[in-house]
């Protein structure tokens, strides 16, 4: 097992290298650079040319990539051209809120998605199944921004309720500390987590339902029932564990998304997340920021799939890595 993990981690190095090269080329292929959106007659075009040379935007692409690689190998993510601040600070500033929102919505997804999925599968073709399936379709088809706006209007801005804050992740200028601070963040978290989680709940529920139905048809389940085991034991002890295999895949694949943020939800709720930052950096061709973020996403994607593979071994004794 240990050997396997080490091997997988070592494999990541060349893949990561290839990924950054690919990402670099794709980013550079997009027309424009950090200065091309500055269409303001008072911004000095000659000075802009000087800055392009200063940031080596006029250098040959292999040299630009080499410079970036050298910097990364020294553990420096670089400095944003437009934010004029170090990229690592920019990411760290937003990591906490991003993870808070990501984990909260993910918890929501698992807490509701799995039980509802099991329920729908066990009570297949009952009114409960139809209801949850119907709701799942609604949840999958409703656009996140629209659901977000509905939540804000309904629960934050007084029609009909004014229970929760409408935006931000803490009360502006309140300077809270200790428990009050955490409660404040919690109150701000509810609506965005709901808005972000709803699609996930619906999606996971459908996965679990399908997978559960499949497992319930298996021979060993029939055998278990034939042994005279109670429904509860059959479902929760024998079937569930196998039915959750796809959930592990989802969890593994969700890792980069957890850190990557959710641009739409972040925008509607003014959540200081990495998603919005990525979007801004993309529009402004802020190369150092884009490269650092993509490197991070690539790394997390690979770690996520490794974790998923390890997770399989954990749940399914038939799978062994050596």
């Amino acid at each position, binding site marked *: 097992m240990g050997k396997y993990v080490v091997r997988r981690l070592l494999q990541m190095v060349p893949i990561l290298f290839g990924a950054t090269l690919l990402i670099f080329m794709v980013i550079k292929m997009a027309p424009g650079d950090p200065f091309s959106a500055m269409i303001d007659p008072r911004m000095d*075009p000659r*000075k802009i040319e000087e*800055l392009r040379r200063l940031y080596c935007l006029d250098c040959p692409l292999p040299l630009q990539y080499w410079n970036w690689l050298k910097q990364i190998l020294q553990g420096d993510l670089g400095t944003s051209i437009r934010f*004029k601040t170090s990229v690592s600070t920019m990411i760290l500033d937003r990591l906490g809120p991003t993870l808070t929102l990501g984990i909260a919505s993910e918890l929501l997804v698992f807490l509701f998605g799995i039980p509802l999925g099991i329920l729908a599968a066990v009570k297949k073709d009952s009114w409960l199944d139809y209801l949850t399936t119907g709701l799942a379709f609604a949840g999958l088809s409703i656009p996140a921004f629209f659901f977000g706006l509905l939540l804000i209007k309904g629960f934050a801005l007084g029609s009909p309720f*004014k229970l929760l804050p409408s935006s931000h992740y803490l009360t*502006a200028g309140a300077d809270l500390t200790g428990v009050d601070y955490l409660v404040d963040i919690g109150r701000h978290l509810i609506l965005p987590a709901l808005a972000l989680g709803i699609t996930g709940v619906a999606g996971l529920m459908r996965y679990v339902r399908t997978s559960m139905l499949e497992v319930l048809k298996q021979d060993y389940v029939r055998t278990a029932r034939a042994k005279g085991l109670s429904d509860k034991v059959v479902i929760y002890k024998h079937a569930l564990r196998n039915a959750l295999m796809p959930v592990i895949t989802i969890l593994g694949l969700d890792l980069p998304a957890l850190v990557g943020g959710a641009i739409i939800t972040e925008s509607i709720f003014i959540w200081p997340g990495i998603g919005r930052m990525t979007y801004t950096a993309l529009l402004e061709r802020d190369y150092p920021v884009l490269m650092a973020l993509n490197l991070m996403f690539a790394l997390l994607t690979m770690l996520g799939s490794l974790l998923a593979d390890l997770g399989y071994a954990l749940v399914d004794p038939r799978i062994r890595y050596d």
Partner: protein
Amino acid sequence: MMKRFLVGLLAVALLAAGCSTKSSNTKDPDSTAPVDGGTLYLSMFSAPKGVFNPILYEDQYDSNVIGLVFNGLLRTNEKLEWICDLCKSFEVSADNKTVTFILRDNLKWHDGKLVTTKDVAFTFMSMLHPDYTGVRTGDYSALVGVEEMLAERDQLGADIDAKKISKEDAAKKIKESWDKWVANSSKQAINVIDDKKIAFTTDEPYAPFLQNLAFSIIPEHVFGSTEIGKMADHPATKTPIGTGPYKFVEYKTDQFVKLERNDDYFMGKPHIPTVIYKIVNQDVGITQLQAGEIDYMLSNPKDIELMKDDKNIQIVSNPDFGYQYMGVNFDHPILKDKLVRQAMAYAIDRQAMVKALLQGYGTVMNSHMPPAIWAYDASQLNAYAYDPQKAQELLAQAGWKEKNGDGYLTKDGKVLEFTLLYPSGNKVREASAPLIQANLKAVGIKVNTEMKEFASLSTTVFDERKMDAWLMGWSLSLDPDPGSIFLPDNKWGKVTGWTNARSEELIKEGTRKLKPEERKPIYVEWAKILNDELPYVFLYSQNTIEAVRSDKLKGLKPDARGALWNIWEFWIPESKQK
């Protein structure tokens, strides 16, 4: 709708007029003497980058904050004329080349240190320094000897590009030319006479210079010991120290900026102790304003409908310093024909755009000067009122007479056709593209529209010039000098490919005179040339619309400068302080 809009405008105008004579807010019958206390919640739609350094920032959102924290030597009065801000008085020499400022007495930075002319000189010297990483150097090229130095820098840059010189050697030469300028000309260009008195001298009289000198002043005692190239890393770039009515407290990334009043503010101690600039979502902002979560926001024309019956919200609408246009590439065989461009101006129903897309909150443009600028005079211009008939006549005159099976005009077997690029982002502009397409189709012009992301589009247009026609806007400043956009020797002036000797003459002449009354006739004549030539098909200028909670905020005197210009005089009645 139109009538109500006019009444609204009239009310705003009356309010503004009334306010310039009386100091109390006429809209509020039970207003008493101002009281201190409360928190003012302003809003903006995008997060600032956190570059709160006047000489380094690039985004309007950063400038919102900078505007409250810093002051320049000059500011504008209600007629948008330059008056003293940090200065006590200023004087232009008889030869129009030297401006001398005397600073106010006892001016203090937010950290308590005195403001001196050293700070002023430091601010402008920093922007000229070769290591400066901002984009404002060009504004000061008129100072004695500076243009020569900048031209040398530019030439060395071109030599680097042509591989005639290495970057290191060029940097050495640039440093030498800077040292030379500092030694020979800088004392003449920026002359610190004493702690209070400073004079700026230009090579030639240059009118826009007053506007450029109005720039926010940064503290020398804070930044002085830092290398200019490293100024962005200085903590005071993130947590600025200024002279303005509000002191910077903190910026919670992507959330809000907190400011507290400056008790020593030279215009008077502000009544409201705390100002919080919240970042809000544009689609949610209006409801937050109505719910009282924010007290101020910029509004779209289409949202006014939702607020107009709300007695607690006051709308302040002003003409803007920008306008939207359809640019044309003069290398395009069809579009370089003036008759075709004029025909398009007649064929595009721009009045309908202002009415439908801007709900009347805007002006149809027929030349380059937008209505907010004092050199604007529409009376002398051809209005190109919507007239498809006239458009077709002009096209026929240009030889476009035959129509093909699809109803498009042809000449020598070629269809009257071009591609119109437009950027995503500005909703009104996005909506105008299909209108233009339909209007032009009606007179037989085939327009293929293509939406592009902003940076891609600007690269296609300004760097590669691979376009037929495109939609975009110019945002201008107070001084009417159009040189940066219409002199063909600089980047923006090159883009259309249009040249006109008389236009260049007039633009240069316009900057040599300093008095607005002497400059205006020049610009009126110049605007007429553009109005006839149409290097751009001018579309519209959208008003700036501000929405304010007038039940909470008292002491507003909205005028041409907008709603927030006298923020230190704002106050909140005790019942609303919560």
